[in-house]
């Protein structure tokens, strides 16, 4: 558990003045991550995306930690090069400090174009934390569908039209893909619960090996809602079990936030313009299908967490 009083004294490694939108989930995410990481010096790599372009407009930078960006699809490979340089120089006695390594990538840069690079880095086991700030579409280029875009969402490349109602396919489960790499720490978190996210970042940074956090990060522009709703929408994703907060520590599952009552997915969908067309009566089957998928996945997750609790073999 993170201590708010202590955290409030932590040095701010990401300063204001960046160009992220008002109400942007990514801005909240990165500040919390860097506060969580303030105990040890950190070198940051960013994949091309909103966070990168908004915080590093030359000759300005919002970063008070070393920050490196090279391209879109290679944040994990890039950071693995820095982490290897660190190990090499440390081994040779040319460097004495303890340093931690964090990569930030959006869902486009992580689920899609950067998946190979991420898989390679996770398999090689570099000691680094990869944080995917998942806003469920390519927001930086103007809200195009990604592998993380949920079924039914209206995006500019899978728009809702007269015959097609937004994205036809369901999103892929990246957290499970990374879990299958058997890295020591994998977690899902969300905007709207600082303690959940900060605790996970700190756990990940203390892990001797690769770690991955997939944080559900509302985008007020792409999801079409009022900027002040960001936190509420993040929480609704967890309360509807559409985006459970859980972690897998050395293979053991744990649900970190158990909703008091599991709300219907409609409660989440109706808060955002990207799902507006789903509210038409003829699109009820799409919502039913989303609910069915959420229920099924939630069941599986609970069973896995139950196994983790009792220590029983699956």
């Amino acid at each position, binding site marked *: 558990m993170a201590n708010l009083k202590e955290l409030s004294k932590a040095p701010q490694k990401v300063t204001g003045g960046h160009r992220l939108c008002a109400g942007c989930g990514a801005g909240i995410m990165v500040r919390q991550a860097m506060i969580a990481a303030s105990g040890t010096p950190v070198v940051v790599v960013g994949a091309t995306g909103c966070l990168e372009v908004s915080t590093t407009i030359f000759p300005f930078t919002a970063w008070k930690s070393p920050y*490196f960006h090279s391209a879109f699809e290679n944040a994990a490979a890039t950071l693995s090069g820095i982490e290897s340089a660190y190990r090499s120089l440390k081994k040779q006695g040319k460097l004495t400090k303890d340093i931690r390594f964090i990569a930030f990538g959006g869902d486009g840069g992580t689920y899609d174009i950067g998946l*190979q690079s991420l898989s390679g880095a996770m398999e090689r086991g570099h000691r680094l934390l990869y944080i995917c700030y998942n806003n469920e579409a390519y927001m930086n280029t103007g809200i195009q569908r990604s592998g993380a875009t949920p079924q039914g969402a209206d995006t500019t490349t899978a728009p809702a039209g007269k015959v097609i109602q937004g994205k036809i396919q369901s999103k892929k489960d990246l957290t499970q893909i990374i879990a299958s790499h058997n890295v020591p720490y994998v977690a899902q978190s969300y905007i709207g619960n600082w303690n959940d996210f900060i605790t996970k970042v700190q756990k990940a940074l203390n892990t001797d090996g690769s770690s991955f956090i997939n944080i559900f990060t509302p985008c007020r522009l792409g999801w079409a809602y009022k900027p002040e709703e960001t936190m509420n929408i993040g929480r609704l994703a967890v309360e509807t079990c559409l985006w459970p907060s859980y972690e897998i520590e050395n293979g053991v599952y744990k649900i970190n936030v158990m909703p008091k009552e599991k709300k219907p997915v409609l409660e989440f969908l109706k808060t955002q313009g990207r799902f507006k067309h789903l509210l038409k009566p003829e699109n009820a089957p799409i919502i039913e299908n989303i609910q069915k998928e959420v229920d099924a996945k939630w069941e599986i997750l609970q069973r896995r967490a139950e196994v983790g609790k009792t220590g029983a073999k699956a």
Partner: protein
Amino acid sequence: MIKTIYSKGKLAAKTGNEVMAEAMRQIEPDVVAAYPITPATEIVQIFSQFVADGKVKTEFIAVESEHSAMSATLAASAAGARAMTGTSSQGLALMWEMLNIAAGLRLPVVMAEVNRAISAPINIHGDQSDTMGARDSGWIQIYSENSQEAYDNMIQAVRIAEKAQLPALVTTDGFIISHCMEVVEMYPDADVKDFIGQYKPARTLLDVDRPYTLGSIDLQDYYFEHRYQLAEGMRQSKKAIAEVAADFAAKFGRKYDFFEKYKLNDAEIAIVVIGSTAGTAKVVVDSLREKGIKAGLLKIRVYRPFNVEEIAKDLAHLKAIAVMDRADSCSGAFAPVYSDVASALFSAGVTSPKLVNYVYGLGGREINTTHIAQIYDDLSQIASGAKKPSNTVEYVNVRIK
């Protein structure tokens, strides 16, 4: 009989790939990231054995693609490490995005590159299409005629890159040099280490007490200046290349220049060529000289930066010149080396030599003394006025209906 030039040099039988790996062992970079690809695989294979046997302190990253190889290598360089990689053909093509980024961020990465044809059709053999495709990516390009040059070029490339703050690649011709055993003079480890010295970058990402942002977004107000600086850096790198060559000659005794002039000064006709074919062409020059024909040769060692002033001066006195390209261009016009040589001559006001472009050896197609003798014969006739110079690309040893 091959003799050593350096007092402490030792002769060894090595393939091109083996000497490149040996050079990497002696350089002992902090980080190497690489991915297997024919015909360059051996270089990193041998090198990873050095790592496994504890002969080098290098962190070796066996990445999952060449794109990641270049990403990790350039990032390690930005972190303050001396970083190297090796690749060929499709691997270089996959790196293309990151090649430009390594140069744009002025990171002195060094690469062992084995020249191989580009797909499609897929072909594993030697031609220079791969590095020609990356010729304007901001990398210093140094080509080797044989294993000795590959070894010497690799050692020099480290210092050149760090001095010029530009990435550098050293090539050999696939299979012809990479897999061919030759006698090479090698220098003691300590002497190579002493020659390359320590890498001391001004700023690094791991210097956490002096944090800085690298790889920012540059808009209309800064991008142009930074790209100008890169192009200017390439122009200025000629000085670094010449200085390192002078130091290398002083230390190890072998002299290197941007171009090697072979019986060129009094020649009337000459071939301009890159890589291993220069060796074959020198044999033809010798036999023509015996017949009293004033043939010569200019071999391009450093292709990027292209020393336009020097090559124009070297070629100005000739009556006819054949530029041999081991890569074609789908420009609808001429192959790359010819275009560069032509513009070098024209910009220097040299318009008297007749200039012809020959494309040869694609996909490892044989090029032998008979083919080259035929080119010199063409040049003799062009020089005497008996034959009109071709104003289009001439293809050597290819079936054209």
